[in-house]
């Protein structure tokens, strides 16, 4: 994928959305998450949640949203950003909703 040729959102499936989000996370966080397995259950923010966590901050989120916009063509409305998200799967559900696809996201 290149920044000059964004992919137009068409019919998406949950796996494709998850894969794109994972790619965005690895692009944003770089080597910090190189050894981290990222699944739908992985949490973005540090919290008391025992699940694996990416330790995102608001600037990581900015880069991820910009990545999804410019590389995938997925424009996430501002009122949806960060509102109640905990996991990578939560973001995938939001993406599926805003691009009009089914909201069934597999764990993995």
């Amino acid at each position, binding site marked *: 994928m290149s920044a000059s040729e964004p992919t137009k959102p068409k019919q998406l499936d949950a796996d494709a959305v998850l894969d794109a989000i994972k790619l965005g996370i690895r692009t944003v966080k770089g080597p910090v998450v190189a050894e981290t397995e990222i699944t739908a259950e992985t949490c973005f923010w540090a919290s008391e949640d025992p699940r694996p966590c990416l330790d995102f*901050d*608001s*600037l990581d*989120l*900015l*880069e991820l*949203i*910009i990545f999804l916009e410019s590389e995938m063509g997925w424009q996430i409305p*501002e009122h949806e*950003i*960060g509102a109640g998200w905990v996991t990578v799967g939560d973001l995938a559900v939001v993406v599926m909703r805003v691009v009009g696809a089914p909201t069934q996201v597999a764990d993995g």
Partner: protein
Amino acid sequence: MPALRRGDRDRVSVEPMLAGGRELIDLQAEGFYGPAADAFVAEVSRRHPARAVYVRATAEAIARHDLPGVDAEVVAHEVFSNFVRTHFVSKLLMVAAPEATVGFLAEHFDTATVEAALGRAGPSVISGFHYTAFPLVGLGLAMSAAAPVISKARFDVLDQPGTDTSDQIVHLSDRSAAIRLTRALRGGRSVWALLDVVLPETRTARTEFLGREMTVSAGFGKVARLSGRACLPISWELRDDGIRLEAGAAVLVDGRSEAEIIDAAVAAQAAFVCAHPTQWLEWYSVLDHAPAVRAEVRQGNESIWDTLRSIL
């Protein structure tokens, strides 16, 4: 001043700060500048629980820079007066006398220099430090033709729902704040950001200011780079005849890293701070224990507002 009821008179007699606040509100726009607010400033200063901490930290920070002809202790006391003028005079009048505030800005705040600079640089991160009367300057810019999105560190007494500019404000405590600012810039709208305060739990960057290390928020460098928009340094001075606003040379993003953008935008404030050291309210930002000082000052502000709210 309107006639006071007996209960009010009793309360005012033991609360000179409230009496001063009422007199200030009665002054309307004339309260913003000049000596009219001096008595109120003196009373708030006397009552402020963090005054000693603020003045001591400010003097320590100023002394580190060894500015020629500057007595750090004297300047630190003047800075604190300007701090009170900003957080209590400006904000009290902005809330209690909104029409007078708009009238004051229309008459005493000329944004032409910033609008001309934006005309050359295009939509930009309009960046400054926390100088005297910064909330008033933010409102003046929001009302101007430039109409930037205003980033705001904290909720305070100014956050009144339904005001004309409330939809222009982005609170930095919101997780989506940086995204909203970046999208505004990409969409062709400027944003206003003050660089010298670091909020808890936000990513920081180390830079240099007047030859000393300083910690600033990393966010504006990233927002500028991702939006591809310039930083436009501005500064201002509250004078007896109003607010004098200046714009510096735009810091273009082309080829610069985020760290280089931050370094250049911060360095652009140095000449103004050296020439007008009493105007910078956040001198203590250069100290390692700035977060602790800031927390104590903020708590002191809240205690003063707990009292002042009764006259709003």
